């Protein structure tokens, strides 16, 4: 009986495995189970940074007011900066969605949850893509969908007022450098073609100095370094990242050296972030599928080895 079963499995193992994989992936797609994952430190770091944007903006405004009260020189410049800061009292998040369709399945949940978090807290969002024109359309649909999905409970989110998607421009290093000086010169118009000067939201955002947090979600090599060199090192803006599980290992050193406030590792990062926000979504669903499939592959490897050793013992 047992040998018959083993022989049958040996012939049909492919189809059995395929069915199991489909189950592992399909069932979680229809479920929203609350996985009890405790966010790792790296994820919590980014979550706290986003959560703290309104407070950071408030502190910046208070600081500037104090500075204004004490200085006589340069008053005009400080005033205009204060005016800019006051336009977005809940702060501004710059989100760079640097991925193409091939790494999108892993990174979209991260982008979605960060956007949702920002929209829920009334934080203004500037979204860009600096690395590839292929992902531009995809990034727009992610931003628009997040805006549409949060508006029910948290007030209407309008493009150009509460968020703006600037699309793609080539030459990422120089582009980020330019954004440090003047975003509207770097991009000129948003993805739909509106000139940035005409957008109400951009009145309060001139360059990276007016951004409270830079979040970069990417699967590319080189892009994180560019953001780190410009946004963190040159302009000293807090910087957080989301990455594919494959490339996370290369960038953990930056987390330890405090160059990054947080780092989301792949689908798991998104799931942890959703847990931190207490809003399970695509990441949690995806993580369930991941967990099931990883368990499956481990079981399969174990089974393969057990069968292998049994066969070898039978033969000898």
């Amino acid at each position, binding site marked *: 009986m047992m040998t018959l079963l083993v022989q049958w499995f040996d012939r049909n193992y492919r189809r059995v495995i395929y069915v199991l994989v489909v189950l592992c992936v399909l069932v*979680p*797609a229809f479920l929203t189970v609350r996985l009890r994952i405790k966010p790792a430190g790296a994820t919590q770091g980014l979550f706290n940074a986003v959560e703290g944007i309104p407070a950071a903006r408030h502190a910046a405004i208070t600081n500037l007011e104090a500075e204004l009260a004490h200085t006589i020189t340069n008053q005009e410049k400080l005033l205009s900066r204060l005016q800019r800061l006051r336009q977005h009292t809940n702060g501004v998040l710059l989100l760079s969605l640097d991925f193409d369709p091939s790494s999108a399945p892993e990174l979209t949940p991260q982008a979605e949850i960060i956007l949702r978090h920002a929209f829920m807290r009334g934080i203004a969002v500037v979204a860009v893509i600096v690395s590839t024109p292929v992902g531009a359309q995809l990034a727009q649909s992610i931003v628009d969908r997040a805006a549409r999905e949060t508006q029910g409970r948290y007030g209407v989110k309008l493009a150009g007022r509460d968020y703006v998607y600037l699309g793609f421009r080539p030459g990422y290093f120089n582009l980020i450098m330019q954004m440090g000086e003047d975003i509207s010169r770097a991009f000129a118009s948003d993805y739909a073609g509106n000139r940035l000067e005409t957008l109400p939201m951009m009145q309060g955002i001139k360059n990276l100095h007016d951004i409270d947090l830079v979040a970069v979600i990417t699967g590319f090599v080189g892009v994180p370094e560019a953001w780190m060199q410009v946004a963190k090192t040159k302009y000293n803006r807090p910087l957080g990242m989301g990455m594919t599980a494959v490339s996370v290992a290369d960038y953990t050193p930056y987390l330890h050296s405090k160059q990054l406030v947080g780092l989301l590792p792949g689908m798991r990062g998104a799931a942890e972030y959703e847990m931190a926000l207490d809003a399970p979504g695509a990441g949690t669903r995806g993580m369930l*599928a*991941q967990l099931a499939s990883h368990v499956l592959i481990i079981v399969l490897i174990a089974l393969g080895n057990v069968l292998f050793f049994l066969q070898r013992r039978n033969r000898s």
Partner: protein
Amino acid sequence: MMPESFMDLAGVWTAALLSLCVFSFLFKDNILFKLTEAIFVGVSVGYGIVLSWNAGLHPKVVVPLMDFIRNYHSKSRADFFWAAYMLASLGIGVLYLSRFSPRQAWLSRFPMAYLMGIGIGMSMPLTIQTSIFEQMRATLIPLVVKTNGAWDWAASLGNIVLLLGVFSVLYYFFFSVKKSDPVSQTVSRIGIAYLMLGFGASFALTVMARIALLSARMQFLKDEWMEGTLRYFNLL
């Protein structure tokens, strides 16, 4: 993207059915997969034609060349060089077509030789730069590390392990040495051990990304196809 117009709906259905046909290959090679494969190959070839015209030949060569011919009197010397070079390239490219004639087929060696020469010449210094120098520089680490005046044993051990790996794997790749003595056999084996550990880790690391891809396809079938269709007809 939820289907908004009728064309979107038709598209989502096409995409969903084609996806299912691809998955059916897992069960068995069948007529639906053969059809999908034929469509996929055909569409991708058509797409390749359009792309090489719309994103390559047309904007990069044809339009500027036409512009050059139209306003040639106001062009600089560099532009003349450019035009001559492009015309020469066209000439080299046309030689490819000689393959259609058995007797003149040797002319097609020119474009092949040209592309090969350019590619190889361009890549050689870059290979030295990125694949040899950068890797060497990253490997130049001290065997023992001192941080703030104290020996850092953990970091030292890490460096030793890394260096042992780099040297032994490099040794494994020696081809013209007879490795029959026990020492070199041991070093080679250490090299193989490093390789295998690395490969196992890389394989396992990729599982997550691949499962995510499949999840995304399933999500597409569920959200855009099933829910989207119901939504389109106001059933949801």
